[in-house]
């Protein structure tokens, strides 16, 4: 009984911290329409600042916490709102979801860059020792009591503000209907800025309260926070703050009981790790229809910079042929390490193509690509190792094994849209990781599992051409898909599912199909990626990679195959460059640059680098045409004045 009460207290304490954070998350979501996947990284970043002030600069812990929670975090929140999320207003929900993923990568990267990813222990705000004993005899630590009090006071403070102050009324008005509130003369920009400030403060407060208990570990904290806070928010269906709060307490208690009474190692440990994601999945699947379908009817018109005049078909064809011709010569012109780097670029491009056909062509989203990659790679490895199949067969069967998983996600995507789909797929990546990829019998434990390479493709040059062939094949498939009937159907579903249905199009069939195809392509990418090291291990397909890949894909361009290839090669070459002594700093800057690139791209031009290249191509075409026209006018004056402009 005493153990149970202690467990309960532990659960309530950590639960109240999750509750606090999930309240902040829901607050910003309801006022600005953006669910912040970068919440955990913001908590990490602000907690590192707290650690620096308190430990390095020697400030009193309380003072440093106050500075971070009341000055640093609110300023950060307002900057994010005004610089990033307000410019994104009017874009489809998926775009702002991806922007927060960019934010996640960015702040995770900044923490890496400044604090070198070191694990630090953060001093607690409260003294050690026992505060009092409960009637049953269970002891309550002063630390736990303090955390509980701060969390409850903060939540009550927020509640009181919303209830009784003028700004609170404005808040509630914006929460219940943003556009009407704007029409009523409420400055919605001011409200959303304040919401972001509050939300970020709550993130900081959560980090500062939790870090002494957990350790400040950049690899652990953000995913941990994503798991529990998103879980809490979704359990409350992101509808009301009290529900979000209750969800947080619930998850805290459930976790404490699970850890106390069920072993934390082996199979049950893996179940325990994936518990919040299981809850997210169940909560999403069983959510009220109106909620799951939120954003279903919303338009998916992405506002990007217009390309005034595209280069002619022939010019584009010529540029493409020249580009691929140049790529084919890479092993001849460059050293072996460059060849290997460009091979990796091909593989990333293939993985990004699997994202392009979902997001760019169909308006869907998946943060679960690493799951497909892992399923394919480990299946291939086991087929080669265990069943002694030839690699050529195994490397096709592996990606095929990922297809049913994709089909299931596609089937769920008929019922779940936008934000909730993003959540679900991320939860799927986490569950695949903790349930399967962390299982030593599947991923081979510490040393990983050997995969090898297909017969005849052991050397770097031949492997290069293998990757090249696959890239061309998948690029052609994707382009044919887009220009053909299937692509038209997918585009029609992206623009209006209701309209598609009214024409007799089975939305279910096409979603199952496209997620299956995406899973296959991503799976092939996973297999080809594991050819690089000839092995795959439990760190090869961590869910974080799904988010990172999304960020890089956006930098290249998520709306077309061209963007996928640009993004893939960019990341492959980046890896090669950071291998040089002079440029080794690139390693540390990787997350910062791609995270920043992703968010900037979404604000400036969602079509990414490829979009900018197209604009440049169009500008050159215009320049060229003007010059030829001028020279023609000089030699033989046009019969009719004017001509076409």
């Amino acid at each position, binding site marked *: 009984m005493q153990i149970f009460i202690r467990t309960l207290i532990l659960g309530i304490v950590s639960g109240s911290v999750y509750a606090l954070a999930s309240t902040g998350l829901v607050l910003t979501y309801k006022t600005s329409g953006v669910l912040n996947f970068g919440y955990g990284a913001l908590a990490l970043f602000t907690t590192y600042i707290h650690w620096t002030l308190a430990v390095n600069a020697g400030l009193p812990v309380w003072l440093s916490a106050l500075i971070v929670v009341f000055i640093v975090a609110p300023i950060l929140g307002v900057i994010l709102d005004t610089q990033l999320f307000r410019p994104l207003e009017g874009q489809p929900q998926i775009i702002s979801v991806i922007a927060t993923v960019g934010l996640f990568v960015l702040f995770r990267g900044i923490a890496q860059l400044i604090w070198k990813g070191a694990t630090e222990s953060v001093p607690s705000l409260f003294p050690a020792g026992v505060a009092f004993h409960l009637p049953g005899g269970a002891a309550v630590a002063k630390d736990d009591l303090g955390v509980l009090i701060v969390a409850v006071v903060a939540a009550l403070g927020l509640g009181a503000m919303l209830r009784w102050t003028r700004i609170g009324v404005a808040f509630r008005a914006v929460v219940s209907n943003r556009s009407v509130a704007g029409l009523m003369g409420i400055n919605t920009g001011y409200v959303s800025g304040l919401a972001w400030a509050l939300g970020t403060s709550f993130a900081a407060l959560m980090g500062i309260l939790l870090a002494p208990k957990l350790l400040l570990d950049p690899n652990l904290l953000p995913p941990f926070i994503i798991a529990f806070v998103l879980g809490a928010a979704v359990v409350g269906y992101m509808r009301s703050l009290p529900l979000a709060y209750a969800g947080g307490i619930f998850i805290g208690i459930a976790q404490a009981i699970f850890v106390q009474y069920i072993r934390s190692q082996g199979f049950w440990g893996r179940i325990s790790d994936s518990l919040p994601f299981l809850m997210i999945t169940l909560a999403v699947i069983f959510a009220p229809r109106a909620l799951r379908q939120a954003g279903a009817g919303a338009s998916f018109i992405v506002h990007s910079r217009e390309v005034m005049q595209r280069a002619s078909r022939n010019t584009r064809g010529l540029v493409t042929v020249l580009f691929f011709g140049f790529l084919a010569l890479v092993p001849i012109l460059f050293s072996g390490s460059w060849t290997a780097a460009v091979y990796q670029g091909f593989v990333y491009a293939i993985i990004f193509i699997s994202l392009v056909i979902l997001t760019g062509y169909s308006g869907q989203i998946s943060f679960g690509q690493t799951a497909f990659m892992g399923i394919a790679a480990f299946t291939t490895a086991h087929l080669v190792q265990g069943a002694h199949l030839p690699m050529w067969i195994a490397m096709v069967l592996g990606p095929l094994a990922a297809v049913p998983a994709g089909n299931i996600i596609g089937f769920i995507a008929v019922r779940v849209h936008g934000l909730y789909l993003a959540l679900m797929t991320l939860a799927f990546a986490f569950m695949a990781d903790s349930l399967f990829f962390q299982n030593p019998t599947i991923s081979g434990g510490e040393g990983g599992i050997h995969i090898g390479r297909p017969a005849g493709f052991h050397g770097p040059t031949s492997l290069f051409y293998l990757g090249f062939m696959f890239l061309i094949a998948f690029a052609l498939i994707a382009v044919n*898909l887009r220009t053909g009937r299937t692509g038209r159907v997918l585009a029609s579903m992206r623009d209006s599912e209701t309209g598609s249905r009214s024409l007799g199009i089975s*939305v279910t069939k096409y979603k199952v199909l496209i997620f299956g195809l995406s899973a296959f392509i991503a799976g092939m990418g996973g297999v080809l990626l594991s050819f690089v090291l000839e092995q795959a291990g439990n760190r090869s397909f961590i869910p974080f990679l799904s988010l990172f890949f999304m960020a890089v894909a956006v930098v290249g361009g998520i709306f077309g195959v061209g963007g996928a290839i640009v993004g893939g090669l960019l990341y492959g070459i980046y890896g090669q460059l950071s291998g040089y002594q002079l440029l080794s700093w690139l390693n540390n800057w990787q997350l910062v640059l791609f995270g920043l690139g992703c968010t900037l791209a979404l604000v400036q031009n969602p079509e990414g680098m490829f979009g900018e290249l197209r604009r440049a191509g169009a500008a050159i075409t215009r320049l060229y045409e003007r010059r030829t026209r001028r020279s023609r006018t000089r030699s033989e004056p046009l019969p009719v004045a004017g001509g076409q402009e």
Partner: protein
Amino acid sequence: MSTLLAQSVTIRFGGLTAVDDATVEVPEGGFIGLIGPNGAGKTTLFNAIGGFLTPTRGRITLDGRDITGMPAAARARLGIGRTFQKLELFGRMSVFDNLMVAAESAESRLDIVSDILSLPRRHSEEARCGRIAEEMLRTLDLEWARDRRAADLPVGHARLLELGRALCTKPKLMLLDEPSSGLDSDETADFGKMLKRVNEDMGISILLVEHDMDLVMDVCKALYVLDFGRLIAQGSPKQIVKDPAVRAAYLGEEDDEAAAAPAER
């Protein structure tokens, strides 16, 4: 045999009865109007016929075939085309592609293999369906907008395009939900002419939900009037205009102008 028969349809949302035991019949080649004041349950009944919601009670048949529980897409494949009050065009696609999607979904089977490998079969199918779409562009007089994005069309043309898109699926029955909303009186009249062509020249039965009485009186051969979910009258437009129950529903009290406002709700 009637093309569409919705028999004693009742639709409840929780405690609210939106449609109460309504029977609507569209004969073959018929042009039927469904009218009623705001909140009468027109669109609800309409959505039940289109398959976007399932009736609580009642039976809906198309050419004698029971389609009551069938999803919208399946009904569309059986020959029900529809347009929406709030346009559901494919905004980012070109006007031509909007028609093309419709033609393809009715005319050719999904063949993803010849699609992604760009086999000859794909191109012959595309040419065939392309001709249907081009033909429809001419019928709609929208050739000038062929390659524009559908989202950029003015409402009048967008309504035409949505109608044309549904026609590309070669429906037996067209369901039109308030096609005149957002149109001025000239555009409405033009749209009415188009509807007559669809009904008379193409031989497609039409069920029209509409607010604009001029349009309804002009084009419909018979009318059903709903009020508070109940059918209160049916008959030819001339009969309906004289029907006292209809006048009461629309005007409140026959001779009291002041009562018109509250009755509008």
